[in-house]
């Protein structure tokens, strides 16, 4: 069949040259022929002739003849190919059923006309309803309700913490007194028994509260979602006006005014895109603090933005041991009920399962993104196994540069958390370059952000969340410069990705950074990114 895929035929053009002699020029034409190539073929043919012929307009006649030749032969070629194929098909040389299956799948998967119509999912409906409601006068009420719910949960967790604390305390006392009596009235066995007993009690108390909490959260979630849906159906009857999707209001109200500085930059060589850059030092968990902990406007911002096309994301570094998030973030997320998504533990569990799937077989991989083991990922992999395709190891896990995503509606400054795997050992800062997997992971994050309308993104500027003694000023400057430059490159590149434009990039520095180092690093921003010149209005009439 492949021998039929192309066919080469000679084209001979006979003409009289300017002296009246018969000449010919010839060219092998390959079919299938691309019409775009016609002029190029004409050029090749005419360059075999005397330059005079070009001036004598021989090219016009030549082009006509070649066009006729190509048209006829192209048609013949197509017809012949079809004939061969049809003959083969008639002889059942192909797997006809496979063709039927593939064609059918293509039609069913891609054309709405043939697809099994699914109504919008519950999530979708809820998202639409919530988004509509939140952009109406009911906003106040929603927030009030959320706050009340959050209060209940946080009270409960507080009580739990308290009780566990007191229990701990009393147990400690009991234990102390027992130990003091060791070898006098008690044996080590007694102590062991006590330990076991204490452990059971503690576990029991904790479990009790946890199940209570879970029940409470489930209950709250149900009640909340039902309430939202009922509100919307009421609203539909009143005003069927659609509210515009998206909002551009500022997403930040920093919790505690740490060190920070903002810049407006222009990127792009001719057409300039404007972005905001903010460099700040804070603990990453402060960006993911519980939303309803205090009375702030953030609840409003986050609710307005949740289903909009201007989301906020945070990149949090995490070691590769397991799909495990930063403990404090988990705790914060559990401070109140997650009304819109799964509770964070469940999300993490699901991700863990997916990782297992990923490694056992790529069956669940999103179609369209086949694992193209492009050279970029292979050479960037600093670990022993250079193959990016999941190897069948006993314990599958993510590697440096991979990331997983959790979604939140109850954290203060982020809807989306990118958990980027980075195994850089604390206390021995290493040198990395722009091909390092973490940097490439960062690029993937920016790409995902662009594709899913995340317009505010916070990245750890040193690729570290805490300072350590080995991080010298020089090292910090080098590392920050690398991250800044790469981020700038990715942002310039992102203009061609056709997604949402990143409006604000936040560069996060550890909260325990020294003030002088912060100033130094902040001072690098304007030189790396091209800071927009202030526009000064001058009276030109002077």
């Amino acid at each position, binding site marked *: 069949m492949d021998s039929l895929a192309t066919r080469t035929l000679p084209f001979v053009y006979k003409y009289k040259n300017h002296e009246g002699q018969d000449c010919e020029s010839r060219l092998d034409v390959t079919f299938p022929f691309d019409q775009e190539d016609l002029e190029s073929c004409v050029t090749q043919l005419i360059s075999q002739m005397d330059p005079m012929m070009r001036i004598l307009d021989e090219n016009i006649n030549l082009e006509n003849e070649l066009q006729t030749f190509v048209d006829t032969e192209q048609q013949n070629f197509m017809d012949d190919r079809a004939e061969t194929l049809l003959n083969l098909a008639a002889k059942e040389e192909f797997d006809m059923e496979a063709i039927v299956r593939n*064609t059918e799948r293509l039609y069913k998967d891609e054309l709405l006309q043939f697809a099994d119509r699914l109504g919008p999912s519950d999530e979708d409906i809820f998202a639409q309803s919530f988004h509509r409601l939140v952009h109406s006068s009911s906003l106040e009420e929603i927030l009030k309700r959320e706050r009340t719910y959050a209060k209940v949960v946080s009270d409960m967790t507080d009580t739990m913490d308290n009780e566990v604390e007191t229990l701990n305390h009393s147990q400690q006392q009991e234990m102390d007194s027992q130990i003091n009596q060791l070898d006098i009235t008690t044996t080590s066995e007694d102590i062991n028994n006590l330990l076991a007993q204490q452990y059971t009690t503690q576990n029991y108390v904790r479990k009790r509260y946890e199940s209570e909490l879970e029940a409470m959260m489930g209950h709250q979630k149900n009640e909340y979602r039902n309430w939202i849906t009922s509100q919307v159906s009421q609203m539909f009857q009143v005003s069927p006006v659609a509210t515009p999707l998206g909002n551009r209001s500022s997403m930040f109200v920093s919790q505690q005014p740490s060190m920070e500085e903002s810049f407006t930059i222009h990127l792009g060589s*001719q057409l300039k895109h404007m972005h905001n850059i903010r460099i700040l030092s804070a603990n990453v968990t402060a960006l993911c603090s519980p939303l309803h902990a205090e009375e702030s406007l953030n609840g409003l911002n986050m609710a307005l933005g949740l289903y909009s096309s201007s989301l906020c994301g945070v990149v949090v570094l995490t070691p590769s041991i397991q799909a495990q998030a930063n403990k404090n973030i988990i705790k914060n997320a559990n401070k109140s009920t997650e009304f819109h998504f799964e509770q964070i533990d469940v999300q993490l569990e699901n*991700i863990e399962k997916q990782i297992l799937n*990923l490694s056992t077989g790529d069956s669940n991989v999103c179609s369209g993104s086949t694992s193209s083991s*492009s050279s970029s990922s292979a050479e960037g992999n600093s670990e022993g196994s250079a193959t990016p395709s999941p190897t069948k190891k006993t314990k599958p896990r993510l590697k440096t540069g991979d990331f997983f995503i959790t979604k939140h509606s109850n954290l203060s400054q982020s809807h989306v958390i990118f958990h980027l795997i980075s195994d850089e050992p604390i206390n021995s800062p290493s040198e990395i370059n722009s091909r390092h997997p973490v940097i490439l992971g960062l690029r*993937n994050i920016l790409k995902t952000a662009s594709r*899913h309308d995340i317009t505010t993104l916070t990245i750890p500027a040193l690729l570290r969340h805490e300072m350590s003694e080995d991080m010298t000023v020089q090292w910090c400057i080098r590392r920050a410069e690398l991250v800044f430059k790469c981020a700038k490159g990715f942002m310039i590149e992102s203009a061609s990705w056709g*997604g949402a434009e990143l409006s604000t990039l936040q560069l996060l520095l550890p909260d325990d950074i020294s003030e002088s180092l912060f100033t130094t690093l902040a001072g690098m921003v304007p030189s790396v990114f*091209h800071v927009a010149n202030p526009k000064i209005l001058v009276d030109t009439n002077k």
Partner: protein
Amino acid sequence: MASKQESRLCALTFFAKLHPGDVCGSNGLPLTPNSIAILGRAQKLKDLQDEHLCQYLDVIRGKHERTIVVSEFMGLSLEDYAKRQHPLALGQILRIFYQVVRGIDVLSRHHLVAHNLEPKHILISRDGRQVKLFNYGLHHMTKGGCYVPFPIGNIRYMAPERVLGLNGNIKSDVWALALLVVELIFQIELWPKLKLSNVIRKILAFGRSNGVLEKIAREHQCYDRYTALDKELRQLLESCLHVLPKKRPLPGELLKHPLFEAIASEMSKENELLESLEKDPVPLLMRCPLSQIYHLWQLAGGDVQAELKKEGLIRSEAPILGLPQIVRLSGVSVCPGRSQAQLMDDRVVPLRLQALLQRLSRLPANVYFPLLHSPRFPAQNARELQALPLVIREKDIEYQFQRVRLFTRLLQGHPHTAEQLQREALVDVPPLLRGPIWAALLEVVPNGSYWKIDKYTATSTDRQIEVDIPRCHQYDELLSSPDGHRKLRRLLKAWVTAHPQYVYWQGLDSLTAPFLYLNFNNEELAFLSLFKFIPKYLQWFFLKDNSAVIKEYLSKFSQLTAFHEPLLAQHLASISFIPELFAIPWFLTMFSHVFPLHKILHLWDKLMLGDSSYPLFIGIAILRQLRSTLLSSGFNECILLFSDLPDIVMEGCVLESQKMYEATPKSITHRQHALRLHTVHDLDIGVDDVELKHLQQEQCPRISAKDVLHLLLNNPSELALVDLRSIVEYGRVHVPHSINIPFATVQLGEQRLEALPVPQLEAQLRGRIVVCVSNIHQHSVEFSHFLVACGIPRTCILHKGFNVLHSIEPNILISN
């Protein structure tokens, strides 16, 4: 003509395929998004105009690879029409048959195939006379479906070879058309209840049978109709439905079939009849080209995306729900299932013209069809609008409508209307017609010469061109598409081949970009515009050794800066921030390398009307806009500032440069290397009079005696002549109203005007063109430097000194 009334616009939308993961092209650059490639390919379709094809008007790229196609629409689809008029008469069916064949014949002559023929894509005017193909370009714009995830074409009408994966044969369209006609004749619907997989099996089964038509008739219980069929028609249909494409007729052959002869003659007769009969009240707007109507519709607030949203074709789903769970370094991701909003939905959304029609209905007919040469009907009735800023004028629908209609007329009359065109272009240029208007301003006359130029033979500059193209204005969708790259390469290579005396300098790509952008479908016009543009503004700039030309140009630039902005020039000179450091790319590319396209277009609108000196004033206008920053900056800051030119307000820049251009006597801008249009007069500056070393030594430009005379006679209040000769000489003979400052009395050390022995000198010089005259040239030069240092603008030196004034006739000199 009658059907034009209901012809409207419509839009449809689909998603382009996402590139998997992170792959690079063969040149190491990231791959072009498929939606951009589609956009580029679709441009060709816009050019296709035929009475049996719906015209393509626009392709818009939305966020996240969405592509929206705007096309002509009329009447009803065949699907609806057949339902309404059930059953169709045989004569009517044949007429439809015939017209569709005409349509696909046009396509095949343009080397296109439809491959999605189905009743939905055949439109019939409400009176049933006219038939047009619709959405026939999908196969072409998506490169046979390569750029989209979905299959193209309705499976029912698909020829067996297409199911086997063979695309691109026009005879597959013949098959589809024949099936369509069979459906109409038998009054059936093909396999209405069959499952998709079984339909595919049926089609594949055709591949083994011979009597497809008979088989269909038997399957659908209309064998009697089959036998009753006119023998000629039956044979025709059978040949079209032959399993082997080779046996099927080509559209061109079909047209010659005797069956259609009667219809063809009948239709042409009808058309003649209609033409003579109908002068019915078609709204005047509908007689304008559809592309103009669409443009106006957009100006009138038409928003295709909003219309699609209204119809639910663009569904906004919360982006947070679609986020992947895991993304691996390789780009592999685990995401939730694709939402159905991403699937291909082939619904068509009409774009309503009612508002536009109403808006423009008040305008008198002579706005629709302006009369150019009859003074009784002045074409202008929007003078008051011309005072508004350009951006507002470009958005004003009535104003644009008038301009577009006027320029359409002027372009039709070109070159006889060249003068009027020039005059109107001075006001502004309507964006819709900018390409042809520029070409007209550049006196381009297409003559087919472009097609004779060798654009394919490999040359030594190919590599550089290949490197530059993917970096040239790539934010623009047209220029970044593969088609755009191909066209730009051809244009550049053609230019290089056509100019053996020149070489390819980097920057030529940027220079070509605006022309290609405006004439994307007309390479010849783009090429000829560039061909004329370069000698007009960049004479000799593309020589292999262009240093002399560039040096002269930049020295002139310095002089003119001193002329218009003496303080700034002084400052820049003092920190030795010379134009060589920043202005070469400005002038070599006529600013097309430093500004985005939309700004270049406005800039060049004015540039086209000026002569070769105009760019210099644009450069000064830019400096002027940055004056306060520059004056307070040192060398390093200046370098940094210009390394990435800040946002320049183009409108201000254009106005300033125009003001300066008009206020500057022509001889001030004299350059040896400029393109000369007039012969040199005795009182002009001779071609080789001023050498580079003069330019570099003299901070102030020279003015010719002719210009001085002109000012003296017409605008004496604009002129301040400073006579530097001694009092004695001055007493003997001088120009009236000139100021005598004997050079010997001047102490140049102190740079204050007050130090001169003339009272209120500053008041006498400000706001005028100050001409330093002496019979010792060096005196004039030194004194002019002194004036510049004092911050006196518009200082220049009389070329050839005082003595040249003697030769003026009639005499202008007087004596005391």
